[in-house]
């Protein structure tokens, strides 16, 4: 078999290994095996590539690989567990710069047609953004740079200008590849763009950004693959590019955000968004709520008359158990007037066999409400009506309430924005950290439980 065939067939095998590896990485039981498989694929791809006739001199390769392996292995070994995310960012940046360089090297090829130049441009652009973006992310996470969003007046304008300039350079580069200026300019602009994209983003959102940059580095490799006409780069690169996007979306959801919100919140877009929230009460789907609950360490359930109407007590108990199995602390906060008769909630929760020890009185729960990741308000309204606490003019002002709004997030499960027994509007529903999950409480809770089945 000609070497070229051997190499390419091996590439196919490597691609299969990458695919399987990625798939297995998605489930806890198989993740480690998946990583091994994908590493095996990489090894195979690298080894067979060395057989390529185009490669004549192995010295430099050896040098690069030895240095790279030592540095990579040491970094991976020595990094503290807590510093892993920034390490990933750094590695990712290196992947980006490598793709940039591969694109550059591709310019040395004898025939340069427009398509090839375009792909070279793309690998440089994406590789460059990935590189500097990842470096900034790394800097923010390792606290070499300030973690807070760095913003300035006209930032958006600058970014748009950068992008346009870069595209212009790209065009020039493709049209006039002999002039190295365009190349250098492209590199410089791409690097700047990477920095500009990441600095306005806060440290807490970095994981999402890293995931996005990871997707970019896949795309850079893919572009480089086109530039040097290499299948495995295209396949592996686009796999990573696509799965990275999906992962980014999943991570955003887990943070109860959209990608747009993550990328642009630094620009004060967040302020605008929260204004909107103030206005109408933000709805959330049960699926999205799941991602938040899945990550929660402590949850307080605040039941009200709606739980009784929906006869949701049994599924609430189920939800409690599912959350507990997930390693989350769950307690119930029972307001004395919740429901329509004294002890209404007790009757129902006893029926569902909720342990008495989990039922906390209002006075016991309120002081520690801040420590809860999520407060799930199930068909309650008046008993969590912040107007009773904050609005002197409210008819129920002075009635003690359960301060659900002090929890980090509040999910309110009810069918509509309708008021409760007292017939009053509830400011809680419009709170910044509140999300309405509309629908019959039993059905909603059921959906949440279902989401927990991986």
């Amino acid at each position, binding site marked *: 078999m000609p070497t070229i065939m051997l190499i390419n067939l091996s590439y196919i095998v490597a691609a299969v290994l990458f695919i399987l590896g990625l798939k297995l990485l998605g489930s806890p039981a198989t993740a480690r095996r998946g990583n091994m498989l994908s590493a095996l694929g990489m090894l195979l791809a690298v080894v067979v590539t060395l057989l390529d006739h185009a490669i004549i001199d192995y010295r430099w390769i050896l040098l690069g690989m030895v240095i790279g392996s030592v540095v990579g292995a040491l970094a991976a070994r020595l990094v503290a567990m807590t510093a892993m995310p920034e390490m990933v960012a750094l590695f990712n940046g290196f992947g980006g710069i490598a793709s940039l360089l591969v694109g550059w090297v591709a310019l040395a090829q004898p025939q340069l047609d427009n398509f090839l130049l375009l792909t070279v441009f793309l690998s440089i652009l994406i590789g460059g953004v990935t590189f500097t973006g990842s470096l900034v992310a790394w800097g923010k996470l390792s606290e070499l740079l300030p973690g807070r969003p760095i913003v300035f007046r006209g930032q958006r304008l600058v970014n748009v200008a950068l992008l346009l300039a870069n595209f212009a350079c790209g065009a020039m580069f493709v049209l006039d590849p002999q002039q190295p200026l365009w190349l250098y300019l492209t590199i410089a602009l791409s690097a700047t763009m990477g920095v500009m994209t990441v600095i306005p983003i806060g440290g807490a959102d970095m994981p999402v950004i890293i995931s996005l940059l990871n997707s970019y580095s896949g795309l850079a490799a893919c572009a480089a693959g086109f530039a040097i006409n290499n299948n495995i780069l295209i396949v592996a690169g686009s796999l990573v590019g696509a799965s990275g996007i999906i992962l980014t979306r999943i991570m955003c959801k887990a943070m109860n955000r959209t990608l747009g919100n993550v990328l642009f919140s630094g620009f004060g877009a967040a302020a605008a968004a929260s204004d909107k929230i103030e206005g109408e009460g933000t709805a959330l789907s049960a699926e999205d709520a799941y991602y938040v609950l899945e990550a929660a360490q402590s949850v307080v359930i605040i039941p009200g*008359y709606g739980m*009784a*109407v929906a*006869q949701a007590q049994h599924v609430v108990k189920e939800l409690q158990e599912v959350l507990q199995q997930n390693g989350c602390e769950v307690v119930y906060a029972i307001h*004395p*007037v919740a*429901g*329509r*008769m*004294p*002890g*209404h909630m007790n*009757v*129902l929760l*006893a*029926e569902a066999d909720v342990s008495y020890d989990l039922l906390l009185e209002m006075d016991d729960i309120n002081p520690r409400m801040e420590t809860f990741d999520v407060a799930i308000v199930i068909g309650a309204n*008046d008993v969590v009506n912040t107007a009773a606490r904050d609005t002197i003019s409210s*008819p*129920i*002002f*002075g*009635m003690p309430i359960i301060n659900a709004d002090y929890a980090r997030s509040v999910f309110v499960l009810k069918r509509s924005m309708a008021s409760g*027994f*007292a017939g009053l509007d509830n400011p809680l529903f419009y709170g910044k950290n509140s999300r309405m999950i509309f629908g019959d409480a039993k059905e909603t809770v059921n959906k949440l439980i279902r989401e927990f089945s991986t």
Partner: protein
Amino acid sequence: MTWIAIPNETGPADKRTAMTPDNVGKLTHAGAEVLVETGLGAGCGYHDELYEEAGARVAGERRELFEKADIVLRVHKPGANEIAQLKKGTIHISYLDPFNEKRLVEALRDQRISAISMEMIPRTTRAQKMDALSSQASLAGYVMVIQAVNRLNRILPMMMTPSGTIKPAKVFVIGAGVAGLQAIATAKRLGARVTAFDTRAVVAEQVESLGASFLKINIGETGQTEDGYARPLSPEQVTKQQQGQADEIAKSDIVITTAQLFGRKPPLLVTRNTIGSMQPGSVIVDMAAETGGNVEGSVPGETVDLDGVTIIGSGNWSGQGCRDASNMYSNNLFNLVEEYWNAEQKSFEVDLNDDILAGCLITHGGEIVNTTIRKHYA
């Protein structure tokens, strides 16, 4: 210095007490001087020493309490002679039954007592913590079921056993207010099949929220007052209701009636005829027996047998779980006093504009200040 006096209850064998040592402690802590009659909490197992530990003075003589008191706290209405012993301007908080006790109210007015009637606490969300009608009715709902179960010649839950299947008993609750709902919940807990009826349509959802079923009877327009109380029915409506229920009652092992009309005589809902259609050994509990009765033939304060059907009209329902009943009533009183307590002057401040006091303060400064009652007497 404000003296708060708590006399023993003298009424029908009610073991409740108006103040528990716990709440006495809170009152003294707030700066009041508390005077209790000896033996105050004996019925619930609270000894005099506990009150003393809580900072109260124990008085051997009942008279002393009334003469000293700036505030009197008690469960039942005062005796006519006791009113005369009170200082003018004393605040007197207890059940009063002002709709039916015109004479008593006038006596209080004439003595210039500020009398607060616990029945008249408005049913608003904010006032719930002082709402003794609710707290006591809730216990009553539970107790009525327990008493009925104790008398029934059957058991409530279903049991499928090798010795045959026992069908679940049927319980029918008429009037699903606070007491009715708690009765429903308790009977459901014990495994009965529970049905309920009420003239207020909003209640259907509440009944179903406890897993019971609501009996639908078409009796036309009904409605409820602003305070959430039922409006009285026309005679035709009452007949319709009686007919609509008859079947359900005949099938039931236990019937519990809790229908009340705020400030009026309760409606008669279960007739002699209907009772005759029930299985011997069945039980009816008439919560309203003492105020007129929902059930024909019920005797206030007694349990009678009618054609083999036991009719419980013993009343004083919350007296059975007297320790919990006292705790709740005492909490209600304390919450009321605390709400209007002036921490600096250490005294109870009567604010005629406050919506809760406007509802429950009957006499003040020598006048009947309560508009509802004034209208009622007029």
